[in-house]
């Protein structure tokens, strides 16, 4: 399929020759609203616009509607023609605004009636328009560069809308021939250029404008093929409102627009019956909007279109679908089932009803719209709502849903669990909200796109995240919060590290004071575990949490070191050795802490004696602890299990986000690179370092294996 339709590029050619200065003979009364003036005032004389003014106004209105509905990728090149051509803007996106064009037109000024009519012609503009259509737009350029091999899918098509005052049908034919010849000429030149493309299809729309009260010298003609490259149509229109209507219809045809009229809009009216007297009354108004015709898809297919208050275009009347305003409820934030959203443009943008409606919407309110149906029943079918200063017509689903009456989530799996950490997860979601990040030119260099960073953050935040309150101790403890918030960060500052360490010392302090812990007693008989066992559970869980982040940075590792060092039970031998070596390597900041140091010493004294006995005890306790909690994993296999990674701990009871993410990350990583040998033989994605030391000591990988949650 070819890319870029005829409507990608539109060249406006507006005749600026002396004859366009002629009056349209449609008078505009300027005095109507000033009737209440005092006596002795000179009445304002009516004015009338020139043909040129009419042409400019109506073409600008065409552009306004187009830019409202398609802010991007539908481009206009505006050309004015007299004794030469004047190109007022380029195909570039930043040149596409009515404001730009208006300023450029102001600079051009009205046609000069004194200019020699012999030198002036709209032909200059038509030739320039063809040349312009050969120039590629930034979008075509981008598509050509990205498609490379299939660059021939990029089509170069366009439309020329010529507003002029032609002399006769013969004159029109001469203009068509000229365009045809220029296309052939330009295509030859374009074939050899990088910035040009031959025109593959061109639609010429000639609009002949003549003053009111005159007979037309040019006859209307529907679209016909001049050649395989060019089609042409002629519209003969009276200046003034007829021209405005014609261009309104053309913009709808050219860009697949349709019209919707919102009826019954209540509006406070400030009647200015006289200077002093303001009467406030309410009346109902209608506002017509244009938008992409897909917003009416449902009507077209269901055949409800006529019932919806539309009139056929053939009858010469405007075709519009009528929808009724439903006074909105206040401030309800609701997700509607919406199947499409289309930008709108009001047909009469400055009328009071229009601006009241659009201002109401721009202020953040939404309006539901009701569609009258064949059966006489009424259905809410659309909604008007603004997003960031743009108003959209939303199409709401109004037919029966195949999802009707589904079972409630509480009836399904996990539906009877009552102690989900809903509030905590809500807090987690708030922390993981998204924000738009401006695109920087060197984004490629700066690494991951923001969305990937967001995903990476989610992964880190959920490495260890128990879903239910009774499954966790540390997340029920205020004292752990500072550490838990920091440890998930990608990198820790020195200050963060200190905060984490302080948190740990604080916990040590609590243990010393024998403060109670919020251990769940669900599922256990009696009073639950004893105080020292509560602390064991807490320390184990804290270690599990921190361990999942240890690979993040050296400071993360130091937090773990700190926990291992501080927890009440002497750590295993190799852990201490490791710590000892580290201390030698670099003057650990944490070491300065007297508290920790003294604790370290006390361990060193006792540890040698306790050694092996402790370890056995610990294992026993481990299994006791696990039996205590209804949601703990099964007791661990004490042998190192290399095959474990093949069986992610899917079917093993407690479900934590950690498990999910770990499985996921394993799969993702395995696709990317050859796995680090240590990680392959790791459990829970944590490689045990210094394994040779263990082997020498004849110890098992017990410590590593237990952290499966």
């Amino acid at each position, binding site marked *: 399929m070819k890319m870029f339709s005829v409507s990608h590029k539109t060249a406006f050619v507006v005749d600026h020759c002396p004859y366009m200065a002629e009056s349209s003979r449609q008078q505009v*009364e*300027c005095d109507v*609203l000033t009737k209440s003036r005092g006596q002795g005032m*000179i009445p304002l*004389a009516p*004015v*009338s616009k020139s043909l040129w*003014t009419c042409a*400019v106004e*109506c073409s*600008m209105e065409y552009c306004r509607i187009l*830019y409202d509905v398609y802010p991007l990728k539908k481009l206009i090149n505006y050309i004015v023609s007299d004794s030469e051509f004047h190109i007022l803007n380029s195909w570039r996106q930043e040149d596409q605004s009515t404001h730009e064009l*208006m300023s450029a037109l*102001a600079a051009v000024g009205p046609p000069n009636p004194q200019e020699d009519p012999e030198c002036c012609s709209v032909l200059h503009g038509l030739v320039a328009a063809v040349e312009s259509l050969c120039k590629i737009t930034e979008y075509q350029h981008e598509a050509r560069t990205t498609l490379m091999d299939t660059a021939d899918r990029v089509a170069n098509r366009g439309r020329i809308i010529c507003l002029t005052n032609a002399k006769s049908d013969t004159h029109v034919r001469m203009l068509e021939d000229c365009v045809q010849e220029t296309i052939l000429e330009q295509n030859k030149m374009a074939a050899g250029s990088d910035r040009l493309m031959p025109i593959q299809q061109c639609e010429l729309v000639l609009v002949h404008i003549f003053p009111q009260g005159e007979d037309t010298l040019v006859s209307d003609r529907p679209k016909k093929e001049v050649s395989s490259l060019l089609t042409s149509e002629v519209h003969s229109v009276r200046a003034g409102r007829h021209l405005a209507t014609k261009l309104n219809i053309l913009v709808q045809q050219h860009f697949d627009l349709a019209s919707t009229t919102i009826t019954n809009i209540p509006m406070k009216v400030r009647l200015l019956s006289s200077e002093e007297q303001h009467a406030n009354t309410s009346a109902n108004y209608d506002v017509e909007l244009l938008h992409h015709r897909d917003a009416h898809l449902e009507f077209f*297919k269901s055949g409800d279109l006529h019932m919806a208050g539309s009139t056929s275009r053939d009858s010469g009347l405007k075709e519009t679908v009528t929808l009724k305003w439903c006074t909105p409820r206040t401030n309800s*934030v609701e*997700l509607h*089932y919406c199947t*499409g*959203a289309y*930008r709108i*443009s009001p047909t009469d*943008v400055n*009328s009071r009803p*229009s601006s009241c409606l*659009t201002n109401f919407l*721009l202020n953040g309110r939404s309006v539901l719209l009701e569609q009258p149906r064949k059966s006489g029943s009424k259905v809410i079918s659309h909604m008007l*709502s603004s*997003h*960031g*200063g*743009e108003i959209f017509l939303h199409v709401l*689903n109004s*037919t029966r849903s*195949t*999802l009707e009456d589904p*079972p409630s*989530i*509480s009836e*399904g*799996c*996990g*539906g009877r*669990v009552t102690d*989900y950490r809903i509030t905590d997860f809500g807090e987690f*979601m*708030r922390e993981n*909200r*998204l*924000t*738009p990040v401006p695109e920087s030119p060197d984004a490629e260099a700066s690494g991951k*796109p923001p*969305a990937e*960073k*967001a995903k990476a953050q989610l992964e880190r935040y959920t490495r260890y995240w128990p879903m239910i309150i009774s499954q966790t101790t540390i997340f029920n403890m205020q004292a752990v919060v500072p550490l838990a918030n920091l440890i998930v960060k990608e990198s820790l500052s020195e200050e963060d590290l200190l905060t984490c360490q302080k948190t740990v010392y604080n916990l040590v302090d609590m243990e010393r004071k024998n403060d109670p812990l919020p251990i769940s007693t669900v599922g256990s008989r009696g009073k639950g575990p004893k105080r020292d066992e509560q602390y064991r559970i807490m320390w184990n869980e804290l270690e599990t949490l921190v361990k999942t982040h240890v690979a993040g940075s050296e400071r993360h590792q130091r937090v773990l070191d700190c926990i291992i060092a501080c927890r009440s039970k002497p750590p295993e031998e190799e852990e201490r050795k490791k710590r000892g070596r580290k201390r030698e390597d670099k003057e650990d900041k944490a070491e300065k802490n007297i508290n920790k140091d003294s604790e370290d010493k006390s361990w060193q004294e006792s540890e040698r004696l306790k050694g092996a006995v402790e370890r056995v005890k610990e294992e026993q306790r481990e299994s006791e602890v696990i039996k205590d909690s209804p949601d703990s994993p099964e007791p661990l296999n004490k042998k190192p299990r290399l095959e474990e990674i093949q069986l992610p701990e899917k*079917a093993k*009871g*407690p479900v934590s*986000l950690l498990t*999910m993410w770990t499985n996921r990350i394993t799969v993702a990583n395995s696709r990317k690179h050859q796995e680090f040998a240590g990680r392959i033989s790791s459990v829970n994605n944590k490689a045990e370092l210094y394994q040779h030391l263990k082997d020498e000591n004849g110890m098992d990988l017990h410590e590593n294996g237990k952290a499966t949650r």
Partner: protein
Amino acid sequence: MLFEHMATNYRLEFTSLVAFSSLWELLVPFTRDYNTLQEALSNLEDYDKTCLEAALHGVSNVVQQEWGHACPTQVIYQAMILIDLDVLLYVLYTAIPHQAVNEYIKLNYVTNCVPDLEIVGFIEIGDISSPPVMSRHLVLPIAVNKEVDDVGPGTTEEPEEETSANQQAGKVPNFCVLLHGSLKVEGMVALVQLGPEWYGMLYSQADSKKKSNLMMSLFEPGPEPLPWLGKVSQLGPISDAAENPYGEDDSKSPFPLQPKIKRSYAQNVTVWIKASGLQTDVQKILRNARKLPEKTQTFYKVVTRESAGMDTLLFMFSRLKMVENMEVESIHSIMDVN
């Protein structure tokens, strides 16, 4: 036979029964009640001949009236099963699969149900603001335990066992339930990615009967499905921003994004196509002129604002009389006041 199978495996699908020969007739409208369908089927009589075309037209009508056209996937996935009951009679079933068979995505964990479904982050409902979607799907958690899975939802042969199995499954914590609960409480949606440049959202939806569900809606594929969010790939975590874009007290929001150029209805554009447009603008100036000299500032303000548009349009008038008149009028007004 077919109905039994469907009743067993697709309890929540809608089925209708259409009989046809030279004419067609809707025997049973779309329903989940398979008994009614069975009954209607057993009451069928033989007709004259087979005319599939008419029947297909009929089916098309029935489907359009009932379900509309909102979702193109419905049309794509319409399953039509022809069953040869008799030489002279065909029965045409039209089951609307739940907008594709995978409508009931069996979501175990968000992360591994569909191979590539990832949560990107979270957005407030007010910020995502009723986005257009191409399809909607109910997200059902499935049992995590193998034993429970074997007698998962949809097996009706041994109702008692199923109940106990379901009860068991109900007690195992499930991420879908947690996610649903928090989304509901916080009024947020989870933005998910299904593939390269294809996104959707997970959210809680409640029906009128206090039943609530986790739903997934899919946006049109593309890098920027919603103009007011911008490119999804450019959405990053708030922790990376210098200042919390939601404010410390959630008083503001970085959404929606504002377009570079305002739309015509959001700025002061001058359109004088209708006489009333011109009249209003002239009137505005005159009204203010009459209040001179007291309200000089207001007058200048109005003139400056109006003239921005007028400058560009006034030049087009072949007769400048109007402007001359306006000046006279203004002077008169000033004199009146004085």
